């Protein structure tokens, strides 16, 4: 295999046997045995109910496990073993190579600082000249469809709607040309129109820049639209790794199909809505069987 081909196929992020547990002796396990990898230009979705361990997995994968937890497992960043990197190097890799999109865009802005402070934060941290930082901020905001990007950069966060703020967050996540974009429920706090815009922008960014994407959502429909590979999680474990094609064809684990089915659609009464309860029981039976074996 040539060096170029090998570099292209090296995953930007590779996670093997990730375990996260609460700190302290006998700390409860939060996620267990999680493995996946994200190639350049590919999107992997972590999907599951609330509390299934998606966000914990995402944070641990990029080296920022939540406070009070301990993570273990083999994690490689662009082929380099994360364990071999010291804290400063890991932090540098994260700042240079990862763009982050958060669930609540209003909460990630310092209310006392203009939005350019957030968008240009990583560039300034990298020591890029202020004139170039300003130019790239305006270009990134314009690219996200923010009207009057030069003026918008100077405004405080409360001058924008939730949808606009999330687009500004995306601008901040892409402005330093990262290799990996991680998004934790980026559409949950948004109205339908803003959700569609954000999804479109994420798709465009991925296609145009060949970005690797790790996408956390409880919305399986959204994952079907955006992802190449879907990791379905339940109670801190992987139920299955599948593709949108297989899921759409109904060729998937009953729990994944149940998740897909229990979505509210017009003209369907609430008591007719299927739930994932039966599938959960099936999962429980499976884990007991594995434990017994």
């Amino acid at each position, binding site marked *: 295999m040539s060096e170029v081909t090998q570099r292209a196929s090296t995953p930007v992020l590779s996670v093997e046997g990730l375990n996260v547990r609460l700190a302290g002796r006998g700390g409860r396990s939060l996620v267990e045995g999680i493995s996946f990898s994200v190639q350049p230009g590919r999107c992997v979705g972590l999907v599951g109910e609330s509390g299934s361990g998606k966000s914990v997995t995402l944070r641990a994968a*990029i080296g*920022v496990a939540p406070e009070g937890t301990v993570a273990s497992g083999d994690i490689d960043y662009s082929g380099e073993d994360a364990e071999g990197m010291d804290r400063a190097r890991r*932090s*540098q890799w*994260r*700042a240079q190579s990862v763009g*982050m999109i*958060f669930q*609540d865009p209003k*909460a*990630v*802005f*310092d*209310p*006392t*600082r203009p939005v350019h*402070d*957030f968008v240009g*934060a*990583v560039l300034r*941290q990298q020591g890029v000249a202020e004139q170039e930082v300003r130019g790239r901020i305006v270009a990134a905001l314009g690219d996200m469809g923010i009207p009057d990007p030069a003026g918008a950069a100077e405004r405080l966060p409360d001058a924008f709607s939730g949808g606009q703020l999330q687009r500004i967050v995306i601008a901040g996540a892409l402005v330093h040309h990262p290799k990996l974009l991680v998004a934790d429920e980026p559409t949950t706090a948004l109205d339908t129109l803003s959700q569609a815009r954000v999804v479109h922008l994420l798709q465009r960014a991925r296609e145009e820049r060949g970005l690797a994407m790790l996408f956390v959502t409880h919305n399986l429909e959204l994952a079907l639209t955006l992802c190449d590979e879907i990791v379905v999680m339940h109670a801190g474990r992987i139920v299955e790794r599948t593709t949108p094609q297989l899921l759409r064809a109904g060729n998937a684990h009953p729990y994944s199909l149940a998740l897909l089915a229990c979505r509210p659609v017009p003209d369907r009464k609430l008591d007719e809505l299927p739930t994932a309860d039966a599938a959960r029981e099936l999962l429980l039976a499976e884990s007991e069987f594995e434990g017994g074996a």
Partner: protein
Amino acid sequence: MTVPKTTMVSLHRFDGRRRLRLFGFEDTTAIIAALFLILLVLASAFAAVIAPYDPNASNLSDANLPPWAGNILGTDASGRDIFSRVLFGAQSTLLGPLIIVVIATVLGVFLALLGAWFGGRVDNVVSRVFDGIMVLPGLLLALLATAIFGAGVVPTAIALSIAYVPYIGRLTRSALINEVRRPYISALRLNGFSALPIWTRHLLPNIGGVIIAQMTVNFGYALVDMAAISFLGLGVQPPQADWGVMVSQGQSALLRGFPMESLAAGVAILLTVLAFNTVGDRLERRFHV
């Protein structure tokens, strides 16, 4: 096609009263208090220009003159002009609390930052330091300082500033703990920002209101403490004009039926403390302290 008529309704209800709004305050008491403090600072800064007489020039033949005899507030037992002494006295009276509040705020906020940022054991140590200082009476510390370093504004103010550290530190710590947990701080940490730029650019500006409110309230209390120290003869030394010294020195004249020196200085202390407390109280309400 007929277009339905629409009526523009103002969302702002006109209640028929014109409200005075100044420095962000809407209530008259707070505005009067803020204006009083501004006037006081200006008067003390330009005391040399405003004061009609030299505050230390004594003339025993003019001792204990009443206000209506030519001097605005009359004269003291040494024949010095009380109004001029009140104006000049404001300088030393405000200097002591200023030293106390600045030192206490710098130390208290720094310790609070350490505790809130690092949490765990560091926070425990910081909290115990605050608790430890709280049990020491401020006046006792000031007396100890004068016993070691001698009487004067600076040693007593420095000693009292230690006693004031927990008052600003504990409140700032709780405000900072809330602020540190906010997602924008996590986002900055994830982006590789180190502690110092996050403290100076984001955390402190966001709790600045809380700090200023507490500083204002503490200033009032520190002024009373410093006046008490001067009253005991351990702070500002005569013949320098100081409100605490004036209350103390006017005692004998007060018993002889000439209350103006003690009264003028006492009222000045009372009004200043009241004004600081009122402004501090409104700031606390605004910043939800």
